[in-house]
C-alpha cells in the first residue's frame, strides 16, 4: 500500500493543507470551549473579533467569561500549538542531519540543560526575576548545554553524525546527573514542583510571554524550511551529500544550533514534553512522503494539532486538576503510533 498511498498523497497535498488548517482552527476553538466553564464557539470568536476590531460584535457575554477566554485559554491554546509545531520541526530536522530516525529534540542534551536551569530556579534561587525566572533560567541552561555539546564535539572531533549523537547523549547524561544533584540538595518538600515541571505543562501561558516562542518559531522555522533541499540531501549519506555541494559537518552544526534555539525556548515555557518531536515527523512521512519541503510545514501543523488535543485531554481527564501534558503525549501518542505502525506495515 505504500506505493499507492505515496502517489496519491503527492496529488492530495493541497487537500492535506486545507484539511490541516481547518482541523487546526477547530482544535483551537475546541481547546477554548472546554474546561471548568464551557463556552460556546460563537463567544470564542466574538471575543477574538472584538479584541481585533473593538465594537465589531455586540457583547453578549460577561467580563468573567471574556477574562477566561482571553487571558487564560487563548494564550494557552496558542502556546500548545507553538510548542507542538516547534518540537516537531526540530525532530524532523535532527532526524535528517543525524540520519537517525530516533533523533528528537531531547536527545542531544538541550532539554537536560533546560531542566538544570529550571530546577536551579525552582529549588535554589527563588523567583528573583519574577514569573520569567524559570523560563529564563531554563533557556539559559539550554543554551549552555548546547555550547557544551558544540565544545565537546569540537574537542572529540565529532564531525560525523554518529559521533555528534553520542556526544549529545553523553553531555545529556552529565547535565542530567548535575541536575539530579540539585534536586538531591534541594528542599525535599519542593521537589514535586520539579517533577511537575519536568512532566510538562502549559498552565502558565500568558500573552506577554508568547512573543518569545512566536518569534523564535517563525524565524527558525522559516530558516529550516528554505534549507529543505539540503535536509533531503543529508538523508542519503555524508559523502554523497558533500558531493552535492553541502559542507556537511558545518550544516549539521547549524541545524543543531537552530534546533537548540527552538527547543530551548519551548522547554523554557512548557517543560520537557516528549514524543512530539520524535514521532510526529514519522507520522507525517507516512502521510505525505519524505520530501522536506512538505515534511517540515506539515510536521509543524500536525505537531500543533497533536499538542492542542493532548492539552485538552490533560485539562479535562481529571478536572479540575491539570494532568501533566507529558503523561498524555506519551500515553496517547505511543498507543496511536503502535496502531499506525500496524496499519502501515509493508
Amino acid at each position: 500500500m505504500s506505493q499507492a498511498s505515496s502517489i496519491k498523497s503527492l496529488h492530495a497535498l493541497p487537500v492535506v493543507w486545507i484539511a490541516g488548517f481547518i482541523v487546526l482552527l477547530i482544535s483551537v476553538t475546541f481547546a477554548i470551549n472546554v474546561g471548568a466553564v464551557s463556552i460556546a464557539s460563537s463567544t470564542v470568536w466574538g471575543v477574538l473579533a472584538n479584541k481585533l476590531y473593538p465594537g465589531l460584535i455586540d457583547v453578549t457575554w460577561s467580563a468573567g467569561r471574556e477574562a477566561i477566554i482571553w487571558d487564560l485559554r487563548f494564550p494557552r491554546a496558542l502556546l500548545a500549538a507553538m510548542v507542538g509545531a516547534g518540537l516537531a520541526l526540530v525532530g524532523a530536522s535532527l532526524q535528517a542531519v543525524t540520519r537517525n530516525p530516533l533523533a528528537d529534540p531531547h536527545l542531544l542534551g538541550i532539554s537536560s540543560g533546560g531542566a538544570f536551569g529550571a530546577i536551579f530556579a525552582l529549588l535554589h534561587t527563588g523567583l528573583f526575576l519574577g514569573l520569567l525566572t524559570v523560563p529564563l533560567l531554563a533557556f539559559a541552561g539550554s543554551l549552555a548545554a548546547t555550547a557544551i555539546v558544540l565544545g565537546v564535539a569540537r574537542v572529540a572531533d565529532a564531525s560525523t553524525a554518529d559521533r555528534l549523537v553520542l556526544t549529545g547523549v553523553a553531555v545529556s547524561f552529565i547535565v542530567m546527573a548535575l541536575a539530579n544533584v540539585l534536586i538531591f540538595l534541594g528542599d525535599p518538600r519542593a521537589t514535586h514542583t520539579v517533577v511537575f515541571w519536568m512532566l510538562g505543562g502549559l498552565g502558565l501561558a500568558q500573552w506577554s510571554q508568547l512573543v518569545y516562542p512566536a518569534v523564535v518559531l517563525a524565524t527558525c522555522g522559516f530558516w529550516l524550511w528554505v534549507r529543505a533541499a539540503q535536509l533531503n540531501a543529508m538523508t542519503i549519506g555524508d559523502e554523497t551529500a558533500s558531493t552535492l555541494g553541502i559542507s556537511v559537518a558545518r550544516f549539521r552544526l547549524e541545524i543543531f544550533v537552530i534546533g537548540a534555539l527552538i527547543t530551548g525556548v519551548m522547554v523554557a515555557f512548557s517543560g520537557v514534553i516528549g514524543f512530539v518531536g520524535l514521532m510526529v515527523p514519522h507520522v507525517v512521512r507516512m502521510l505525505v512522503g519524505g520530501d522536506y519541503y512538505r515534511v517540515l510545514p506539515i510536521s509543524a501543523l500536525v505537531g500543533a494539532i497533536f499538542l492542542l488535543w493532548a492539552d485538552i485531554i490533560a485539562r479535562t481527564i481529571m478536572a479540575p486538576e491539570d494532568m501533566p501534558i507529558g503523561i498524555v503525549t506519551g500515553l496517547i501518542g505511543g498507543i496511536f503510533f503502535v496502531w499506525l505502525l500496524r496499519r502501515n506495515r509493508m
Partner: protein
Amino acid sequence: MSAAKLNVINACWNTRRGDPILKPLSLSLNAGRVMGVVGANGAGKSTFLRLLYRYQKPSQGRIEIDGRDIWALSPRLVAQNVAAVLQEQPTDFALTVREIVELGRTPYRSILSAKNENDSTIVDSALRKLELSEFASRRFGTLSGGERQRAMVARALAQEPNLLILDEPTNHLDIRHQLEIIELIRDLDMTIVTSLHDLNMAAGVCDEILLLKQGSVLAFGPPETVLTNQSVSYAFNVSAQSEKLMPTDRLHFTYTLMGRT
C-alpha cells in the same frame, strides 16, 4: 555535457597521526577518458577517490579540474562539475526514486528557487537512461540493491558533471545490469574515474588503469601495459595468469593462491 581534464599533482593523504594512507601521486587524465582504479583491499583506492570528489583534502599537493584547484572553488561549483556514486547506503526517509534523482539538481538550485522545467527534463532523461521511469514514484527504501544502485547513478547523471566518480559501480548488480552500467560508462560523454574489483571488466572498459598497493602507485597507463601477470600477482598477492580470449581478443585473468596449484 562536456568532459573535464583531471590533473593530480603530487597529492597525498595522511591520517591525523601522520600515517601515510596515500603516498604522493601525480597523474593526468585527458578529457573524456575512463580511468580504472584497482588494487587490493586497503590499497588506498577509496582514499584516492575521496580526494577527487573533494571529501578529503590532500595533506599535500592538489587536484585540478580543467586547470582549477578544487579546493580553491566553492563546494557548490565543484558539485556542478564532479559527481560521485558511492557505496554509502541512504537511510530510508521515505523519499521516492524521483526525489532521490532530483537531489542531483541541488548544486544548481539557489535557496528559495522552486524546481523548474529544465530540472525536471534533466531528471526525466536520467530516469529513462537508467530504465527507472516506471519506478519514479516508488519509495527508494522498497527497491532492490541493484535498483538502488541505478537510482544513485541516475542521481549523479542529473548533476550533469564533467567528471564522474564511481566506487565499485557494478556491486550488487546482476549480470545484465552490470553490462548495462559498463555500456553506459563507455557511452557517457564525460571523464570517468571508477574503482573496480573485476580486473577483466576494468581491462575491457578503461582507457587507463591506476594500480595501487599499500598507498603507492605500482603502475599507471593503458590496461595492456599495467595489467601484467607480474604486476597483478604482486599487487594482490596471488598467482595471476592472463590469456587472450579467443573470438573477442580480450584480456582475461585467472587467479590462484600462491604456493598452491
